[in-house]
C-alpha cells in the first residue's frame, strides 16, 4: 500500500451549474485519522461519496489505497467502508441479518464469528435478533458502525459517526476508533461538526468551504496559525472569511 491513502488531484464535482467540490487536492496519510471540516454545503459528503465511487467526479483524479477510484473502484472497495447519517440499513431485517448480508457482499469468511465479535465490541449482543427499525437512534448508529467495520477496512470514511450518540457512548466509540486505527494501521477520514472529537482523534484537519479546501494542518498548528484558543474558534473564523481564500 502506498503511504498516501487518499490522493486527489483537482477533483471537481458539478451538479448542473452548481459546483459542489471545486478542484480539491486532498492528501491523506496512510494510518492517520483526518478530519474533514466545514459547514453545511461545504462539499464534505460529496467528497466522501466520490472517494467511495458513489458519485462520479466531473473532472480530476482520485486514488484511494493506491487505486484509481474512478476507473478501478472494484479493486479497492473490499478494503474500504463507510458510515453516514444519510444512509440507513433495512429496518425490517434484524441486526444479525443486516450484518450477515454485508459480510456476504464483502466476501467475509466465518461471518458468524466475525459478527459475534463485532456485536461484543459494540454491545449489540442483546439486539442481534431484533429488527433494526426497532432500535433507538443510538443503537442504530452502533449497528451502522459495526457494519462499517464488517470487512475490517483499511480505509474508513465516516460522516458524523457520533452525531446521535449519548456522550458516554460517543466517547466509547471514539476510543474504539482510535484503538482500531492504532492496532490495524487503518486510515480514517471523518467528517464531523464536533470539534472536541476532531481535537481528540485527528492528527490532521482539512477545512472545506463552498467546495474548496481553504486550509489544512494539525489541529494545534491551525489553532496557533489563527491565534485562537480552540478549533471551534478556528472553524468559526474560517466560516466568516471570504470564500475566495486561496488554498
Amino acid at each position: 500500500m502506498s503511504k498516501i491513502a487518499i490522493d486527489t488531484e483537482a477533483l471537481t464535482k458539478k451538479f448542473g451549474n452548481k459546483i459542489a467540490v471545486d478542484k480539491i487536492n486532498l492528501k491523506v496519510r496512510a494510518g492517520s485519522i483526518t478530519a474533514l471540516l466545514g459547514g453545511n454545503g461545504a462539499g464534505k459528503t460529496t467528497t466522501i461519496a466520490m472517494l467511495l465511487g458513489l458519485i462520479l467526479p466531473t473532472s480530476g483524479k482520485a486514488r484511494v489505497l493506491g487505486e484509481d477510484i474512478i476507473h478501478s473502484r472494484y479493486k479497492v472497495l473490499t478494503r474500504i467502508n463507510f458510515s453516514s447519517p444519510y444512509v440507513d440499513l433495512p429496518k425490517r431485517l434484524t441486526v444479525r441479518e443486516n450484518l450477515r448480508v454485508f459480510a456476504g457482499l464483502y466476501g467475509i469468511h466465518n461471518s458468524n464469528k466475525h459478527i459475534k465479535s463485532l456485536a461484543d465490541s459494540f454491545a449489540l449482543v442483546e439486539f442481534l435478533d431484533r429488527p433494526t427499525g426497532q432500535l433507538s437512534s443510538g443503537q442504530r448508529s452502533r449497528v451502522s458502525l459495526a457494519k462499517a467495520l464488517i470487512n475490517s477496512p483499511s480505509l474508513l470514511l465516516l460522516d458524523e459517526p457520533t452525531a446521535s450518540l449519548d456522550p458516554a457512548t460517543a466517547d466509547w466509540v471514539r476510543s474504539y476508533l482510535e484503538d482500531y486505527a492504532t492496532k490495524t494501521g487503518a486510515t480514517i477520514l471523518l467528517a464531523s461538526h464536533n470539534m472536541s472529537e476532531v481535537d481528540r482523534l485527528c492528527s490532521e484537519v482539512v477545512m472545506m468551504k463552498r467546495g474548496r479546501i481553504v486550509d489544512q494542518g494539525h489541529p494545534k498548528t491551525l489553532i496557533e496559525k489563527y491565534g485562537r484558543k480552540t478549533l471551534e474558534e478556528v472553524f468559526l473564523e474560517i466560516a466568516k472569511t471570504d470564500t475566495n481564500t486561496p488554498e
Partner: protein
Amino acid sequence: MTNIITNAHKGSNQPIAIYRISTMLLRYLYLLKSSWIRILELAYWPTMQMIMWGFLNQYLMSAESSVIKIAGMLIAAVLLWDVMFRSNIGVAVSFLEEIWSRNLAQLFASPLRPYEWALSLLSISLIRTIIGVIPAAILAIPFYSYSIFDMGIPLIAFFANLMIFGGAVGLLVSALVLRYGMGAESLAWVGIFLIAPISGIYYPISVLPEWLQTIAWALPSAHVFEGMRALLTENVFMTDLFINAAILNVLYMGSGLAVFLYVFRLARIRGLLIQIGE
C-alpha cells in the same frame, strides 16, 4: 478490542460473483420471511383473481360462445397474466425496498456490481412469482376441476417467456424510478397494465385494430397468449410463436438490462445513489 483482521475476501475482485448475487437474494428472502402477511399477500391476489374469473368462466361455459367453452381458458389466461404481472412487480418492489430503506449507497459502496443486483432482483422475482401463482393454480383443481399443469411442457415455455418479459419490464420501470425519483414510484404497479390490452390475454390479437396488431406482435406476451389459445383450442404447441416470443425476449431483456445499467451510471453522475429516498 477483538482483533478482527482475520477475514479473507473470497474472490472479491471477480467481475461477477455468485456469492454476491446469492447474498442479495438472501437479503430479499430475509425481508419476505420478516412478515407472514407479505407471504400471504403474494398468493392472495392471484387466488382472488383465479376464483373470480373461474366462476365467470363456468358461467360462460353454459352460454352460447364457441371459444369460451374451452375448459379453463379464462383461468389459464388469468394465471399466466399473473406470472407476467408478478414477475414485473417482483423486480420493481424489491428495487423499491432499497430506496425506501435508504440502502442504495451502502450496497454500492460494497463490491456489489449493478448487474449482480439486477440478477438478484430477477431471482427474487422468480421466487415471489412461484409463491404467488402456484397456490392459485393448485386451488383451481378442486374449485373448477381444471389443472393448468395439464398443459405439460408448453406451460414451462409460456411461464419462462412471461417471467423474462415481466422481469425486463420490471428493470425498465426500476430504471425510470431511479432516473425520475419517487414521483415515478407508481409505475411499478401500473406500468405493466399499459401492455395488458395489447397482449391478447383474454381475446385473440386479431380483434385489435390493424395498426395496434403490429404493436402487439412486437410483444413476447402476445405470442405467448396466442400460443396458449392454440394449445387449449387445437391442442397444438405453436413452435413459431414460442420462437418469436423467445427472440423478442432476448431483445427486451437485453434492452432492460442496458437501460438499467445506463441509468445506474447516470445516477452516479447525478449523485442519486445518496439522495434518492422517501
